[in-house]
């Protein structure tokens, strides 16, 4: 599979804080990728940076993000961005209620998006809006066009967001924790909907998730982030069934399944950006840490079918690890 988007050595500073540290990953064409990690890992920052929503005053970005047929996203002019957002790239937010404008009807928001992105007439856009709402499973779609966002439930708002995001037929969709504000039964509905729609459009999707189990269910590839560094990246099944990085292993051990009898969370919490170790940022909490870990950053190297950045990976015999 060729890469639709290739993020290469993305480093992002906010002031003196290094929020992202040399992040690289590829999004396969027609595939789904999950950025997982805890809060402060930089998952959402990556999505926001790739959508071109960061101004130069807020953050300084180094590295490349090559989108097929478009080029490096970080060198685009503001004018070029307006052509790409909504058509090549689109985004679904965690809080659909806040992402939809409360002053306009649902229909009005979809119609204006369609007219802008696809150049449809008002009438055609309206017809297309009804189709879109139906396709995302909103009952009685024609009547719902006149509804205001607050009149819809959280699940319905998220469906509207998905309809708007997909209206421009984007090549790449970002879904930033699309279900974490929803009930579990609705979560299953929405995740299925996103995956079905992405598949039907032949698009790729980057999910930002904190739930490893959900990532294993929905994504082909997983990138595990910790404090802005890639810890481990690769095929979801390989990586999550048999983690090599101690952080992935600990994160997985924290996932509660029914019947879980023991939890072994990493101790402490993420260090502040002012006190980050120069090497591996997980070194301060890592049970496998070696003396060199805090000072020397391990490179992301292939191992057992995935890429790992660790000097002392787990699940590897001692002799081999050296």
């Amino acid at each position, binding site marked *: 599979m060729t890469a639709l988007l290739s993020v290469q050595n993305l480093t992002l500073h906010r002031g003196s804080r290094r929020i992202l540290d040399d992040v690289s990953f590829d999004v396969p064409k027609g595939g789904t990728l999950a950025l997982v990690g805890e809060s402060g890992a930089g998952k959402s920052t990556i999505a926001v940076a790739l959508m071109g929503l960061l101004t130069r005053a807020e953050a300084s970005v180094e590295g490349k993000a090559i989108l097929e047929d478009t080029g490096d996203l970080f060198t685009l002019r503001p004018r070029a961005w307006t052509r790409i957002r909504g058509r090549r790239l689109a985004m679904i937010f965690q809080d659909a209620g806040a992402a939809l404008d409360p002053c306009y009807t649902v229909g009005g928001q979809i119609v204006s998006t369609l007219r802008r992105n696809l150049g449809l007439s008002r009438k055609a856009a309206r017809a297309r809006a009804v189709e879109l709402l139906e396709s995302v499973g909103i009952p009685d779609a024609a009547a719902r066009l006149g509804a205001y966002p607050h009149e819809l439930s959280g699940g319905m708002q998220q469906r509207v967001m998905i309809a708007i995001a997909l209206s421009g037929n984007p090549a790449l969709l970002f879904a930033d924790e699309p279900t974490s504000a929803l009930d579990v039964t609705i*979560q299953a509905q929405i995740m299925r909907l996103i995956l079905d729609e992405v598949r039907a459009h032949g698009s790729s999707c980057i999910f930002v998730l904190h739930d490893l189990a959900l990532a*294993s*269910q929905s994504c082909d590839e997983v990138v595990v982030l910790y404090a802005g560094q890639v810890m481990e990246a690769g095929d979801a099944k390989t990586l999550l069934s048999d983690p090599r990085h101690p952080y992935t292993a600990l994160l997985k051990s924290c996932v*509660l*399944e029914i019947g879980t009898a023991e939890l072994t*969370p990493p*101790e402490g*919490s993420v260090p502040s950006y002012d006190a980050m170790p120069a090497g591996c940022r997980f070194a301060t909490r890592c049970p496998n840490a070696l003396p060199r870990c805090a000072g020397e950053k391990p490179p992301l190297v292939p191992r057992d079918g995935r890429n790992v950045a660790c000097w002392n990976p787990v699940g590897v015999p001692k002799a081999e690890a050296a």
Partner: protein
Amino acid sequence: MSEEGAPIFELLDVEKIFTITRATGPLKRETLRLPALDGVRLRIKQNTSLALVGESGSGKSTLVRILLGLNEPSNGQALFRGRPIVEARKGLRAPFHRDVAMIYQDARGSLNPRMSVEALIAEPIRHFRLCAEKEIPARVAALLARVGLPADVAKAYPAGLSGGQVRRVAIARALASEPSVLVADEAVSGLDVSTQAQLLNLLADLKRTMGLTLVFITHDLGVASYLCQEIAVLYLGRIVETGPTNDVLNAPAHPYSAALRRAAPAFFEPIAEPLPGEIPSPVNLPPGCRFAGRCPRRQDDCLALDPPLGRVLPGRHAACIHPLTGSPGGPAERGDAAPSNPDAVL
């Protein structure tokens, strides 16, 4: 401390109806009856841990407010150690206040931002006159150590603490009055998994070493399974299934519990076939089972009969005419099950 197994809380056919007025026109208003809880029957025994599980709109928050005496049931009785809860709360230093401690989901919001951690934890100690004034700092330090916080946190204010730390402070403050019952409303949700796991280990340890009775409201079946022996599943203001947590989750009797179970993410399994539709509004419910509209196993009699909570297996109760396991808990047992044998003995 009362004997092992005596009921602490008893809810007898508790009903809570909120009335809301809504403008239907410039001058017209209509009053709607919104039944948040309907016929809830629950018994919480000493030294047990109970998970109240349900989605938003299931009535679990209302149930907690009734357990805490913040709302009075519209019908039925809510008892604390045999006395109506609202009565048990009367009086400034009534045993109820000391005995029942609450941990809020929004831990930060439940702590006065103008008070230091030390003042926050000392407040209940002082209020219940648990020790001499000069012993208070030592006691606060002991409580902080108990919840795994360093001693220097005592001088900090909530705004200077991380989300996980604030939750620990809220737990320390709840423990300060030496309660026997801990009511926790989504106490670990909205946190990172590693922080959540740390807190769950802490709560499990507190429960074990201090003999606490735990009422844990959660939407996360994994949390319920890890922390609680018993579970009560709520749907639309009603308890639809109760029983030992792992029995219920491994072999649910009610189709709604089964759907919840399936919807919980599990590693490498395809995303389960979701339930159709959403939880309906409790206003103007049709007759019959409230879950019938979304139930994959609905039959014709489900639309006519509203099944009460009945025994399906020893120790297991479900409100379903056609349960997935055991004998039907529906109309057949209805006559004898309801009044004499208080079901849902937890």
